[in-house]
């Protein structure tokens, strides 16, 4: 806890933090704390990985950052300047949260619901520009030919891309993805993470949770290690931390 507070001060110059969560505590049952005083900051154009064993509170943290649930205590601050943004934060849950009975394109268009008038969206009359953008994103992610396919016909990697596309059409500055590549084989997982790397270069900040520490060194700009609702350690320039050290910390 103290270690983390030091890390938090040292690693982040408050001026380039676009998201900061301070003193987050959370309890589902009003008795036990699932998160006990967590501080996280996210910088523009960085990829942060949160690692920790299951039940360490990763999902809860992501939901709080995404404003899906309200923390019992603490606050989340967004600091975003310039640009007319529609949804600053896009959230991709653990099992992606796609509507399996609809097509890839429909799922991507759902990302535009927040800025499409209700009555028009109900009859599926999205702006031409929104359609074009959805198709552009799908083709950029290499699944344009799957646009009219229903989700349950897609492979795990293709579904992952649809979820990314739905996040991107929200014009987010931050993407939060829970257990992002957990269900994928290693090769596909690396392909997806390469895509994420490119997004970071476009100045999108990414926070990805995983229980698979092997991906951290290659992809993360920063790693946050969690255990039992606490952040034990935070490392910048993740290259200089060994796998063994991470494993030892979070066990």
């Amino acid at each position: 806890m103290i270690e983390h507070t030091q890390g938090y001060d040292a690693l982040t110059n408050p001026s380039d933090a676009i998201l900061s969560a301070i003193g987050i505590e959370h309890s589902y049952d009003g008795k036990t704390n699932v998160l006990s005083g967590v501080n996280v900051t996210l910088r523009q154009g960085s990829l942060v990985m949160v690692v920790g064993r299951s039940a360490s509170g990763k999902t809860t943290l992501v939901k709080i950052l995404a404003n899906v649930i309200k923390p019992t205590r603490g606050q989340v601050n967004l600091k975003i300047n310039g640009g007319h943004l529609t949804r600053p934060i896009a959230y991709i849950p653990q099992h992606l949260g796609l509507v399996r009975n609809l097509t890839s394109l429909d799922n991507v268009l759902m990302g535009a619901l927040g800025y499409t008038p209700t009555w028009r969206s109900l009859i599926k009359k999205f702006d031409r520009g929104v359609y074009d953008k959805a198709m552009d994103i799908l083709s950029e992610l290499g699944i344009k030919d799957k646009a009219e396919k229903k989700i349950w016909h897609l492979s795990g990697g293709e579904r992952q891309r649809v979820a990314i596309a739905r996040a991107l059409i929200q014009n987010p500055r931050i993407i939060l993805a829970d257990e992002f590549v957990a269900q994928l084989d290693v090769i596909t997982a690396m392909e997806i993470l390469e895509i994420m790397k490119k997004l970071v270069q476009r100045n999108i900040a990414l926070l990805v949770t995983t229980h698979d520490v092997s991906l951290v060194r290659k992809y993360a700009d920063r790693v946050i290690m969690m255990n039992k609702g606490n952040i034990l350690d935070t490392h910048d320039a993740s290259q200089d931390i060994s796998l063994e050290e991470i494993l030892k910390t979070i066990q």
Partner: protein
Amino acid sequence: MTTIVVGVLGALGLVSFFHLGLFDLSSLLRAASNLRQFILETFPPQFEILPALMHAIWETIQISFAGTLLGLFLSLPLAFLAARNLFGRWVAGAVRLIVGGIRTVPSILFGVIFVIAFGLGPTAGTWGVALYTVGYLAKLYYEAFEAVDVEVIEAVKSTGCNRLQLFRFVIVPETANTMISQLLFMFEYNIRASTMMGFVGAGGIGYYMVGYVQMLQYQHLLTTLILTFLVVMTIDYLSLRIRSVITVAKN
């Protein structure tokens, strides 16, 4: 413990059997001979009245179909408001109370009420079936809505959409198969409810059944029952076939 329960139930049963005249030997014998007479007078069925009955059974099918559809239109908004994953406890609770209230009214009573409102005829029967449908269909639907994967709801909600959009893009597509199959089941079931509507003069074949009983034309009554039986079986069969196709398509 079990012995006591069985003993008490047995005693209660004996007392009520006695009260209801089930031990009155002379009345039992009289009933048997009456029934024998009734059955003798019932056979053989008279098929020359079939053409006249066709019109009435067709009306019953229409009452069932239109009533189910009308019930669907009334059920959708109620089920939407009663789903606790879309609305708060108070709104959902109040609407559930209304739906539960509707469910406690027997279909035949709805028939009587709408005969008072619209006069004798199939319009009253259609409204009666519709209201009866609402009591069950709305409940089946809000339960299906609540079973939708919470992760999908959270993910789409986080795009900034409102409840109507959520309903249109998540709840309906995710539950469409269940909704259709429950609607067919309701239609199938409503053929019986529509038959009863005729008992109170609210249209359809039931009117003839009551009429033949009152005029002691038991052979005609049997013909009517056979016709109704055939229609019920045919519709059950068709509906079962369609529903199994839908369930297969789902998996």
